[in-house]
Protein backbone atom coordinates (compact mmCIF):
# COMPACT_ATOMS: atom_id res chain seq x y z
CA UNK A 1 0.00 0.00 0.00
CA UNK A 2 1.52 3.19 -1.07
CA UNK A 3 0.53 6.64 0.05
CA UNK A 4 1.70 9.98 -1.08
CA UNK A 5 2.88 12.64 1.30
CA UNK A 6 0.99 15.69 0.56
CA UNK A 7 2.38 18.00 3.23
CA UNK A 8 6.10 18.33 3.87
CA UNK A 9 6.91 17.85 7.55
CA UNK A 10 9.98 19.63 8.85
CA UNK A 11 11.42 17.85 11.87
CA UNK A 12 13.76 20.22 13.66
CA UNK A 13 15.28 19.04 16.93
CA UNK A 14 14.94 21.51 19.75
CA UNK A 15 18.55 22.36 20.55
CA UNK A 16 17.83 24.82 23.30
CA UNK A 17 17.91 22.32 26.23
CA UNK A 18 21.10 20.82 24.82
CA UNK A 19 22.65 24.26 24.65
CA UNK A 20 21.58 24.95 28.21
CA UNK A 21 23.25 21.80 29.45
CA UNK A 22 26.42 22.54 27.49
CA UNK A 23 26.63 26.05 28.88
CA UNK A 24 26.12 24.76 32.38
CA UNK A 25 28.93 22.27 31.89
CA UNK A 26 31.18 25.01 30.51
CA UNK A 27 30.36 27.19 33.49
CA UNK A 28 31.24 24.33 35.85
CA UNK A 29 34.57 23.67 34.20
CA UNK A 30 35.41 27.37 34.06
CA UNK A 31 34.75 27.70 37.78
CA UNK A 32 36.85 24.69 38.74
CA UNK A 33 39.55 25.49 36.20
CA UNK A 34 42.67 26.01 38.25
CA UNK A 35 45.13 28.45 36.84
CA UNK A 36 48.34 26.89 38.02
CA UNK A 37 49.96 29.38 40.35
CA UNK A 38 53.67 29.56 40.89
CA UNK A 39 53.02 29.59 44.64
CA UNK A 40 51.99 25.95 44.64
CA UNK A 41 54.53 24.47 42.30
CA UNK A 42 53.32 21.23 40.81
CA UNK A 43 56.88 19.94 40.41
CA UNK A 44 56.96 19.35 44.15
CA UNK A 45 55.72 15.88 45.07
CA UNK A 46 54.41 16.26 48.58
CA UNK A 47 54.72 13.49 51.16
CA UNK A 48 51.60 11.60 52.17
CA UNK A 49 50.25 11.93 55.69
CA UNK A 50 46.69 10.99 56.51
CA UNK A 51 46.50 13.23 59.57
CA UNK A 52 47.37 16.41 57.69
CA UNK A 53 44.47 18.80 58.21
CA UNK A 54 42.89 20.59 55.25
CA UNK A 55 43.59 24.30 55.12
CA UNK A 56 40.97 26.42 56.86
CA UNK A 57 39.74 29.72 55.53
CA UNK A 58 41.14 31.70 58.44
CA UNK A 59 44.62 30.35 57.74
CA UNK A 60 44.36 31.26 54.05
CA UNK A 61 43.60 34.87 54.96
CA UNK A 62 46.72 35.21 57.11
CA UNK A 63 50.04 36.58 55.96
CA UNK A 64 52.08 33.71 54.61
CA UNK A 65 55.26 32.91 52.78
CA UNK A 66 55.29 29.84 50.58
CA UNK A 67 58.52 27.87 50.23
CA UNK A 68 58.55 25.22 47.51
CA UNK A 69 61.56 22.92 47.76
CA UNK A 70 62.23 20.59 44.85
CA UNK A 71 63.68 17.09 44.85
CA UNK A 72 67.22 18.50 44.69
CA UNK A 73 66.67 20.62 47.78
CA UNK A 74 66.54 23.91 45.87
CA UNK A 75 64.02 26.61 46.52
CA UNK A 76 61.51 27.28 43.74
CA UNK A 77 60.63 30.96 43.81
CA UNK A 78 58.08 32.26 41.32
CA UNK A 79 58.99 29.42 39.01
CA UNK A 80 62.72 30.11 39.26
CA UNK A 81 65.20 27.74 40.84
CA UNK A 82 67.38 29.38 43.50
CA UNK A 83 70.55 28.02 45.03
CA UNK A 84 70.83 27.83 48.81
CA UNK A 85 72.62 31.17 49.26
CA UNK A 86 70.10 33.03 47.11
CA UNK A 87 67.24 31.27 48.88
CA UNK A 88 68.49 32.26 52.32
CA UNK A 89 68.95 35.84 51.13
CA UNK A 90 65.39 35.76 49.77
CA UNK A 91 64.07 34.58 53.14
CA UNK A 92 66.00 37.39 54.86
CA UNK A 93 64.57 39.93 52.42
CA UNK A 94 61.06 38.65 53.02
CA UNK A 95 61.54 38.95 56.77
CA UNK A 96 62.69 42.56 56.39
CA UNK A 97 59.73 43.24 54.14
CA UNK A 98 57.33 41.72 56.67
CA UNK A 99 58.81 43.87 59.45
CA UNK A 100 58.56 46.95 57.26
CA UNK A 101 54.93 46.18 56.47
CA UNK A 102 54.16 45.80 60.16
CA UNK A 103 55.94 49.06 60.92
CA UNK A 104 53.95 50.88 58.26
CA UNK A 105 50.79 49.33 59.69
CA UNK A 106 51.65 50.65 63.14
CA UNK A 107 52.62 47.27 64.61
CA UNK A 108 56.33 47.59 64.99
CA UNK A 109 57.93 44.51 66.51
CA UNK A 110 60.54 44.63 69.23
CA UNK A 111 63.88 42.99 68.60
CA UNK A 112 63.52 39.24 68.93
CA UNK A 113 59.77 39.21 68.55
CA UNK A 114 58.58 36.50 66.17
CA UNK A 115 56.96 37.50 62.91
CA UNK A 116 53.26 36.64 62.48
CA UNK A 117 53.88 35.37 58.95
CA UNK A 118 53.21 31.67 58.44
CA UNK A 119 55.81 29.74 56.47
CA UNK A 120 54.05 27.30 54.17
CA UNK A 121 56.66 24.61 53.67
CA UNK A 122 56.02 22.53 50.57
CA UNK A 123 58.96 20.18 50.29
CA UNK A 124 59.43 17.29 47.92
CA UNK A 125 59.06 13.91 49.58
CA UNK A 126 62.52 12.71 48.56
CA UNK A 127 64.55 15.61 49.97
CA UNK A 128 66.80 14.69 52.90
CA UNK A 129 65.94 16.32 56.22
CA UNK A 130 69.31 18.09 56.40
CA UNK A 131 68.52 20.14 53.27
CA UNK A 132 65.11 21.20 54.53
CA UNK A 133 66.45 21.97 57.97
CA UNK A 134 68.72 24.64 56.42
CA UNK A 135 65.64 26.53 55.29
CA UNK A 136 63.90 26.00 58.64
CA UNK A 137 66.95 27.39 60.41
CA UNK A 138 67.13 30.34 58.02
CA UNK A 139 63.48 31.12 58.72
CA UNK A 140 63.96 30.83 62.47
CA UNK A 141 67.05 33.04 62.35
CA UNK A 142 65.01 35.75 60.63
CA UNK A 143 62.10 35.63 63.06
CA UNK A 144 59.73 33.20 61.36
CA UNK A 145 58.47 30.66 63.86
CA UNK A 146 55.03 29.75 62.56
CA UNK A 147 55.16 26.88 60.11
CA UNK A 148 52.66 24.85 58.14
CA UNK A 149 54.15 21.62 56.81
CA UNK A 150 52.30 20.58 53.68
CA UNK A 151 51.40 16.97 52.93
CA UNK A 152 48.87 15.11 50.85
CA UNK A 153 45.90 13.50 52.56
CA UNK A 154 46.13 10.55 50.21
CA UNK A 155 48.36 9.33 47.43
CA UNK A 156 47.56 11.45 44.38
Amino acid at each position, binding site marked *: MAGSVTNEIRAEPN*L*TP*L*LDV*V*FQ*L*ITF*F*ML*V*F*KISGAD*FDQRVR*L*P*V*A*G*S*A*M*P*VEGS*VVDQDRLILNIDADGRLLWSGQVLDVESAIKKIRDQAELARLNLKVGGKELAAGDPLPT*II*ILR*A*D*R*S*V*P*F*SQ*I*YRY*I*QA*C*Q*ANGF*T*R*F*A*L*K*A*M*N*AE*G
Partner: protein
Amino acid sequence: MRRSKQHEVEIQITPMLDMAFQLLTFFILTYQPAPVEGQFSMNLLPAAPAVSLDAEAPAADQSQPAELPAALRTLTTSIFAAPDGQIGHITVGENEYATLEQLKARLVEIVSDKTLPFDQAIIQADPRLSWDALMKVVDVFAGKDVNLTKLSFAPLESEPAL
Protein backbone atom coordinates in the same frame (compact mmCIF):
# COMPACT_ATOMS: atom_id res chain seq x y z
CA MET B 1 -1.25 48.47 5.66
CA ARG B 2 -1.42 44.78 5.85
CA ARG B 3 1.19 42.17 5.82
CA SER B 4 1.39 40.28 2.63
CA LYS B 5 3.71 37.58 3.92
CA GLN B 6 4.74 36.51 7.37
CA HIS B 7 8.53 36.24 7.65
CA GLU B 8 9.93 33.72 10.08
CA VAL B 9 13.28 34.74 11.55
CA GLU B 10 15.38 31.75 12.55
CA ILE B 11 18.40 32.15 14.79
CA GLN B 12 21.17 29.83 13.79
CA ILE B 13 22.30 28.22 16.98
CA THR B 14 24.35 25.50 15.33
CA PRO B 15 27.59 27.58 15.15
CA MET B 16 27.10 28.62 18.74
CA LEU B 17 26.62 24.99 19.69
CA ASP B 18 29.79 24.06 17.81
CA MET B 19 31.75 26.70 19.66
CA ALA B 20 30.23 25.64 22.97
CA PHE B 21 31.22 22.04 22.34
CA GLN B 22 34.74 23.11 21.50
CA LEU B 23 34.98 25.04 24.71
CA LEU B 24 33.56 22.09 26.60
CA THR B 25 36.08 19.75 24.98
CA PHE B 26 38.93 22.09 25.96
CA PHE B 27 37.86 22.26 29.57
CA ILE B 28 37.28 18.51 29.80
CA LEU B 29 40.69 17.74 28.33
CA THR B 30 42.52 20.21 30.55
CA TYR B 31 40.56 19.40 33.70
CA GLN B 32 42.80 18.20 36.47
CA PRO B 33 41.12 17.89 39.84
CA ALA B 34 43.37 19.54 42.38
CA PRO B 35 44.81 17.07 44.87
CA VAL B 36 43.78 17.67 48.44
CA GLU B 37 46.65 19.21 50.36
CA GLY B 38 46.70 19.09 54.12
CA GLN B 39 49.11 20.61 56.56
CA PHE B 40 50.53 20.34 60.04
CA SER B 41 50.53 23.71 61.78
CA MET B 42 53.13 24.28 64.45
CA ASN B 43 55.46 26.77 65.99
CA LEU B 44 59.05 25.78 65.40
CA LEU B 45 61.20 27.73 67.78
CA PRO B 46 64.99 27.54 67.48
CA ALA B 47 66.50 25.16 70.05
CA ALA B 48 63.32 25.04 72.12
CA PRO B 49 60.26 22.80 72.23
CA ALA B 50 57.53 23.81 69.86
CA VAL B 51 54.01 24.77 70.73
CA SER B 52 51.14 23.98 68.40
CA LEU B 53 49.12 26.89 67.07
CA ASP B 54 45.94 25.09 67.98
CA ALA B 55 47.04 23.84 71.36
CA GLU B 56 45.42 25.01 74.54
CA ALA B 57 47.37 27.08 76.98
CA PRO B 58 49.61 24.92 79.16
CA ALA B 59 47.99 26.29 82.32
CA ALA B 60 44.75 24.52 81.38
CA ASP B 61 46.33 21.18 82.21
CA GLN B 62 45.94 20.89 85.95
CA SER B 63 47.07 17.28 86.12
CA GLN B 64 50.73 18.27 85.93
CA PRO B 65 52.55 20.44 88.41
CA ALA B 66 52.98 23.91 86.96
CA GLU B 67 56.62 24.09 88.02
CA LEU B 68 57.60 21.03 86.00
CA PRO B 69 60.30 22.20 83.58
CA ALA B 70 59.64 21.90 79.86
CA ALA B 71 62.56 19.53 79.42
CA LEU B 72 60.87 16.96 81.65
CA ARG B 73 57.62 17.27 79.75
CA THR B 74 59.33 16.76 76.39
CA LEU B 75 59.44 13.32 74.83
CA THR B 76 62.60 12.93 72.81
CA THR B 77 62.31 10.70 69.77
CA SER B 78 65.23 9.91 67.50
CA ILE B 79 64.78 8.72 63.94
CA PHE B 80 67.70 6.92 62.34
CA ALA B 81 67.75 6.57 58.58
CA ALA B 82 68.36 3.50 56.47
CA PRO B 83 70.75 3.88 53.51
CA ASP B 84 67.82 4.61 51.19
CA GLY B 85 66.62 7.53 53.32
CA GLN B 86 63.71 5.65 54.81
CA ILE B 87 63.30 4.90 58.49
CA GLY B 88 65.97 2.55 59.82
CA HIS B 89 64.97 2.46 63.44
CA ILE B 90 63.41 4.73 66.01
CA THR B 91 64.31 5.30 69.61
CA VAL B 92 62.01 6.72 72.25
CA GLY B 93 63.99 7.22 75.41
CA GLU B 94 66.11 4.10 75.62
CA ASN B 95 63.69 1.85 73.77
CA GLU B 96 64.24 1.01 70.13
CA TYR B 97 61.54 0.36 67.55
CA ALA B 98 61.80 -0.85 63.99
CA THR B 99 58.47 0.18 62.54
CA LEU B 100 56.00 3.04 62.76
CA GLU B 101 53.36 0.65 64.08
CA GLN B 102 55.57 -0.19 67.06
CA LEU B 103 56.26 3.52 67.58
CA LYS B 104 52.56 4.28 67.46
CA ALA B 105 51.75 1.52 69.98
CA ARG B 106 54.39 2.88 72.37
CA LEU B 107 53.19 6.46 71.97
CA VAL B 108 49.61 5.42 72.63
CA GLU B 109 50.82 3.78 75.86
CA ILE B 110 52.68 6.92 76.84
CA VAL B 111 49.86 9.38 76.22
CA SER B 112 47.29 7.13 77.89
CA ASP B 113 49.43 6.87 81.04
CA LYS B 114 48.36 9.93 83.01
CA THR B 115 51.29 9.60 85.40
CA LEU B 116 53.74 10.45 82.64
CA PRO B 117 54.30 14.18 82.18
CA PHE B 118 54.93 14.28 78.43
CA ASP B 119 52.87 16.82 76.53
CA GLN B 120 55.32 17.78 73.78
CA ALA B 121 57.96 16.06 71.71
CA ILE B 122 61.22 16.76 69.99
CA ILE B 123 61.89 14.71 66.90
CA GLN B 124 65.59 14.31 66.32
CA ALA B 125 65.97 13.26 62.71
CA ASP B 126 68.91 11.75 60.92
CA PRO B 127 70.14 14.28 58.33
CA ARG B 128 69.84 11.59 55.63
CA LEU B 129 66.22 10.85 56.48
CA SER B 130 63.86 11.70 53.62
CA TRP B 131 61.19 14.31 54.18
CA ASP B 132 58.57 11.70 53.34
CA ALA B 133 59.77 9.42 56.13
CA LEU B 134 59.88 12.28 58.62
CA MET B 135 56.34 13.33 57.75
CA LYS B 136 55.19 9.76 58.34
CA VAL B 137 56.57 10.06 61.87
CA VAL B 138 54.86 13.43 62.28
CA ASP B 139 51.70 11.74 61.03
CA VAL B 140 51.93 9.20 63.87
CA PHE B 141 52.42 11.93 66.47
CA ALA B 142 49.61 14.11 65.14
CA GLY B 143 47.19 11.24 64.49
CA LYS B 144 44.01 10.94 66.52
CA ASP B 145 45.32 7.99 68.56
CA VAL B 146 48.34 9.89 69.88
CA ASN B 147 47.43 13.53 69.19
CA LEU B 148 50.72 14.93 70.39
CA THR B 149 50.82 18.11 68.31
CA LYS B 150 53.43 20.13 70.15
CA LEU B 151 56.41 19.13 68.06
CA SER B 152 59.80 20.47 67.20
CA PHE B 153 62.62 19.22 65.00
CA ALA B 154 66.32 18.90 65.58
CA PRO B 155 69.04 17.19 63.58
CA LEU B 156 70.47 14.03 65.01
CA GLU B 157 74.04 14.93 65.84
CA SER B 158 75.72 11.60 66.35
CA GLU B 159 75.58 8.36 64.46
CA PRO B 160 74.36 5.28 66.33
CA ALA B 161 77.04 2.94 67.59
CA LEU B 162 77.39 -0.02 65.26
